[in-house]
């Protein structure tokens, strides 16, 4: 039952705690903020520059869900698409540390914090990933700990 899509990718056994994934860079434009906000977060401070200036955020900022989504996309491009990923389990302690304003460039790292075999599914391992997303001034914008399933090459091997 080899999965032809992921057979040549890195599997759970190939990963090591402490591995750091560089997220690259992504610039958030006004149009990106408006497009996401119209569909998922139509609050005035994500849709209207005047309202944004008068809000707690002090200017047009991306939805926190958009910032997290972009961080996720950067992780998929540089890591999850290169391993035998079987989907996410969820996350803990997501913190929006600073708003991402229109024109900001985000980047940062994701670090493998933990690796453990699944108790209920021996063919899977759980990789725990710590996000540290920052803006161009190196200020933190988002941190979270994501848990993702990765297929084991040898499900019969002792955990």
């Amino acid at each position: 039952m080899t999965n032809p899509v992921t057979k040549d990718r890195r599997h759970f056994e190939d990963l090591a705690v402490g591995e750091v994934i560089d997220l690259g860079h992504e610039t958030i434009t006004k149009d990106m903020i408006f497009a996401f906000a119209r569909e998922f977060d139509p609050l005035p401070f994500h849709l209207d520059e005047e309202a944004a200036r008068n809000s707690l955020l002090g200017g047009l900022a991306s939805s926190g869900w958009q910032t997290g989504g972009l961080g996720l996309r950067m992780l998929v491009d540089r890591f999850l698409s290169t391993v035998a990923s079987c989907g996410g389990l969820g996350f803990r302690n997501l913190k929006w540390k600073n708003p991402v304003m229109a024109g900001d460039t985000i980047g940062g790292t994701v670090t493998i914090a933990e690796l453990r075999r699944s108790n209920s599914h021996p063919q899977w391992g759980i990789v725990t990933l710590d996000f540290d997303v920052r803006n161009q001034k190196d200020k933190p914008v988002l941190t979270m700990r994501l848990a993702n399933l990765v297929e084991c090459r040898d499900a019969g091997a002792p955990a």
Partner: protein
Amino acid sequence: MTRWFENITPGEPFPLGSHTFTEEEIIRFGRAYDPQYFHIDPELARESHFGGLIASGWHTVSIGHRKMVDALFAEEERLRGLGEEPGVSGPSPGVNAMDFKVPVRPGDTVTYELVVNDKRASNSIPGWGLLFNRITAVNQRNELVYTADLVSFSKLRDYKMPLRLRLLQALTRVPVIGRRLRRGA
């Protein structure tokens, strides 16, 4: 909810409504934010253990957020209709826990509900309270899709700012001093 912090009763459920996920929107979201093959390619997705295309968890959650925003606007309208001034909700500092349970497939209808489990005044931002919310999402078979424990800000109606803070706020309006104070904060 766009109720004043003081008017929110912990434990009271707020239904947020439902959303039916189409294949087109699952793929569009996946391409933009989570381009793993089981979120963007129905053919390749069959090879995965999911056996077909599924929505990104981030997509299901983003729709849940949209439903919450719509509910805030509806509550605001309702209160205005009663001749009352609605409360003010602020940005969210974060999410304590998010657990994805069963995947969402094209054609699935997900129903969302929010319960404020607890509330307290904010220690860091005077005049605002913190709400500890749980969002629960279930599909048309009543299977749990996800649970989320979120924190959000809500303005206090009955807050009286202490003299010390009122003076500080007045000082932040003086150009040079204000910039220094904000930088120090």
